[in-house]
């Protein structure tokens, strides 16, 4: 190739590159402009309040006036037995998460096998998902009432039923049970969706290789559904930490005493029932950190398992 020809080719290439770069830049700017409203919105309704809450957690804000108090609100939390109890209760909710995962998975697996009445069961299981947490709390309250169905069943065996929600030995268990029952439907549906994505030929190959049902679930289905399991796990944990205030409020009001008080509920109680908004903000920030740590641990655990 002669020198002028090479020069022509180079200049065409650089012209093309220039045009490509200009288009790429233009697309990037357009992209940024299109996402700008969403970014501004998220910043206004989430990021800004978060920073505000973080600031107020270092003050004695009472709704009207705020003075800087440093770490006082956080240090007070360490010595507050009620908050220690609420932290333990929140951790109990976290610990109960397997109960919100395993039964839905089993039911989803059974439904996926096309048992008779499959579609009806799907509808019945999913229907309660449309209920608000307030309604779920009211149903739970009736279910666990001294004159409610659970007590009636217990009495059939000649055992005097306790007043479940008024007894600090049972109230937390009752509330946790209600929460896991409430998320049963949505988790089942997510698992059903996940099961539909598993490659059928892989399962059949495992059958041919002589794997039994449990082995197929453990070594084929669950690894293939890892993303779904992770999603359900994280959503369930986050919900248990941040999404059930209304249910607890309706069922027990956080009582008796602090028996069903969670960190989420403590934010409300501290801020609004006692007027200590700064202390409430500190509990809120702590709750956020606890939740983020829990989610990070779950992701780490599942990542290690996936790699193993």
């Amino acid at each position, binding site marked *: 190739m002669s020198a002028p020809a090479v020069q022509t080719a180079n200049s065409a290439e650089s012209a093309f590159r220039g045009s490509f770069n200009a288009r790429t830049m233009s697309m990037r700017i357009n992209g940024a402009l299109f996402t700008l409203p969403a970014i501004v919105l998220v910043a206004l309704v989430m990021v800004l309040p978060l920073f505000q809450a973080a600031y107020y957690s270092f003050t004695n804000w009472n709704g*009207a006036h705020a003075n800087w108090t440093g770490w006082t609100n956080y240090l007070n939390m360490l010595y507050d037995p009620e908050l220690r109890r609420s932290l333990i209760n929140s951790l109990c909710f976290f610990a109960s998460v397997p109960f919100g995962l395993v039964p839905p998975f089993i039911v989803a697996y059974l439904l996926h096998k096309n048992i008779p009445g499959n579609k009806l069961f799907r509808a019945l299981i999913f229907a309660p998902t449309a209920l608000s947490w307030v309604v779920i709390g009211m149903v739970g309250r009736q279910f666990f*009432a001294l*004159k409610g169905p659970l007590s009636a069943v217990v009495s059939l065996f000649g055992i005097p039923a306790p007043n479940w*929600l*008024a007894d600090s030995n049972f109230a937390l268990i009752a509330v946790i049970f209600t929460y896991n029952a409430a998320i049963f439907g949505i988790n089942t549906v997510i698992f059903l969706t996940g099961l539909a994505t598993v490659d059928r030929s892989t399962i059949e190959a495992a059958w041919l290789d002589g794997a039994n049902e449990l082995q197929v679930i453990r070594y084929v289905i669950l690894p293939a559904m890892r993303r779904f399991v992770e999603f359900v796990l994280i959503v369930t944990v986050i919900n248990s930490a941040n999404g059930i205030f209304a249910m607890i409020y*309706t069922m027990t009001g956080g*009582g008796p005493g602090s028996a069903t008080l969670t960190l989420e509920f403590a934010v409300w109680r501290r801020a609004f029932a006692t007027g200590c908004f700064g202390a409430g903000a500190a509990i809120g920030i702590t709750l956020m950190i606890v939740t983020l740590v829990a989610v990070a641990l779950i992701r780490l655990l599942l990542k290690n398992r996936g790699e193993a």
Partner: protein
Amino acid sequence: MHIWVKSAVLAATMLVAPSLPAFADDIQLTMWGQGDCPPDTCMGAALVDAFNKANPGIKVNLIQQPTDGYFTNLLAQSVIGRGPDIASMWAGGYMDQFKTYMVDLHKYIGDDILDTVNGIDFFSDGYNHKNAVYAAPNTAQWYIGYYNKKVFKDAGIDKVPTTWDELAADSKLLKDKGYIPIVQGAVDGGAAFAPWEDWSYIATALPPGDWGKMLSGQMPYNNPTLVTALTKWNQLFKDGYFNADAYNSPTALQDFIGGKAGMYLGGGSWQAGNLVKAMGDDVGIIVPPYSDTPTKAAVSFAGGGYAVMNYSKNVDAAGKFAAWVLSDEGQKVIAQYDAPTRPGFPNNNPLLNDMATLSGTAGTVNYPMFDNFTQAPVTDALQRNVPQALVGQMSPADVLASMDAAYASLPDDQKKPISFAK
């Protein structure tokens, strides 16, 4: 015009539109009431209707809020300036936290009226209505118990008990006859029963002066007198004289009205209208006999009031409503439902008249409602823990210690001496 210019104009219009004033003829006001308000017994709704008719050009819209958490919700909305124009208010400690959000009503109500209003001092700065007045009281109220005369007669009880011992003896008679002697429960829709009424009468074991000392931190709540009183209260539960689900029964009031129970001791004058309507002459008032000697106590206080919030965009119109409540017209409407706060407007509810007679009887020691003076954290401890003392989930000493701890946690500026002097 470029499309983005059109879009920008449209977007700006959409953003600004909500903040433009409504071009309606009426001034629209929002008023928050508390709890259920059945159409035929709702005093607040009747007041609003009568005011709207008497004041064309102003329209008050009544919105009932749940009693449970009412003040926390009001505070949350007030902090961001989004609360109602007019708010149902309770006096004392409940009101103190809203002082920065309420208007002084002197601008709308003359001293000639204010001087005649019973309980106005409790809604005023420093308990003196010559200072700022924050709410127009709508009723005089009592904490009071009720008993079913028919059930008492059936159990062979011819007079109401006046001491702990008599209460236990009568409860036994009622229980033996198959009645629930004393019914209690979450009657206002909350998750547990509110202990305000019971607690006030339990605390009458101490004289009013000692109430002031406890509220001011000069005397511990955890004292032998109150420990003994709470222990006796718990003993009634242990003996089966309360319903087993007293802590959170959702049907307590229905059980009383339905004749299943002899006494409902955690009530108040605001229930008198409904009870007379449902039970007729069978219902009577009873002072909760939480006393070693025949009780002489009566717990009464200014009832609710209507406060005008200073973040309202129509403060003057809202002030007009507050003034109207205390006018002759407003008092006549109140008298149809409850006990008005100005003299000369009698009502025809025999129970309310009995309560007024009780308070006016020589020898009666009139106490205010205790929880109207407790500081927010103490109120919180009281609300959560006193019901547990009844059902034996917490020892009386622990309950009272939790109230002392709540007081100790107060910032210094809230540890002020409290007295009930007018």
